[in-house]
């Protein structure tokens, strides 16, 4: 399936092909530590066990604010 991931910290938007199942799988694939990012889909914060669907759009919000 194809999904879109916006990373707040890096200010990048990636279109990726994803073959996993859950948000946890997705973060693992992106090598992102779930301690350091919140995951938002359709303006809702979601946790790792949520299922990823085709055409989903995710925002990864950084927990750390440097300074």
């Amino acid at each position, binding site marked *: 399936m194809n999904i879109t991931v916006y990373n707040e910290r890096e200010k990048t938007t990636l279109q990726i092909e994803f073959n996993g199942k859950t948000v946890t799988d997705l973060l693992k694939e992106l090598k992102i*530590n*779930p*301690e*350091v990012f*919140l995951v938002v889909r359709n303006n*809702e914060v979601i*946790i790792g066990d949520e299922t990823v669907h085709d055409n989903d759009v995710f925002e990864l*919000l950084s927990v750390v*604010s*440097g300074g």
Partner: protein
Amino acid sequence: MDCFHCSKSAVIEVQHGALCKTHFINYFEEKVLKTINKYRLIGRKDILCVATSGGKDSLTVLYLTKKYCERNNIPTKNIRALAIDEGIAEYREKTIIDLQKFCSDHQIPLEIVSFETELGKTLDQAYPIINKGTQKKPCNVCGVWRRYLLNKYAAKSGATKVITGHNLDDEAQVIMMNIFKANTQLAGRMGPISGIEESEHFIQRVKPLYFCLEKEVRLYALLKGFQVQFTECPYSKEGFRHHVQEMLNDFEQKYKGTKQGIINSFLALLPNIREQEKGRIDEIKQCSRCGEAANKEVCNACVMKEMIING
């Protein structure tokens, strides 16, 4: 996954289970208000100076300080916000705009003090000069001057407590840094309320977010709709602290509860550390140049100021 208390979908997993938006907000606010009560961070007669930057931690602590006062019939006119503008291009301007809006929305008076007007140079200008002679990193310069101005202006406003937005992650990082550097004297001054008794030259520091993970603070600020745009200090990756932060987040992912464990161990040891340091902590003196609290003849802020003047 559903909330531990109701059937709504969860926004976070905390130690005792998953929580939905409403139950997380309750959990978070109760934790902070309990911390204030348990450690007596705010008293009825205190004049409160909240150290703010416009980031998620300071907006959250400002909001909950006001909430605590309202709940306990403490006059909210005793609260004021103080911000230090270090002069970091592309960074501080942005967070200060968020802060000004927040303070006016919540009717909290805000004072902004800048490095440039107070010390003659912005951090961006001062850092290369000081670094040349001392190898000091931007965060060292920033920290010394910020503490200095915070103390000075908090005292000027008649404050009896300085409230900061330090969260559990911040504290765990500093605890580890002090251990790595064998800095037991500094360790004695930490904890939810600074150990040093109120003195003429030093106002007690208190940390209502002491038991809140940084992740929880960001989530709370987001769910409450506090406007916090993500910004990062361009110097934040230069320090020792950054490495400790990465290490702890890495550990937390692999071993849940690591950060809380560090805090718990530290709090268990703190009374002993303070007892041991009692005899050793040099009495707080007054800087012979500026009159602010210092542990040497001339305070660090004045030493750095001098370097700037002499180029």
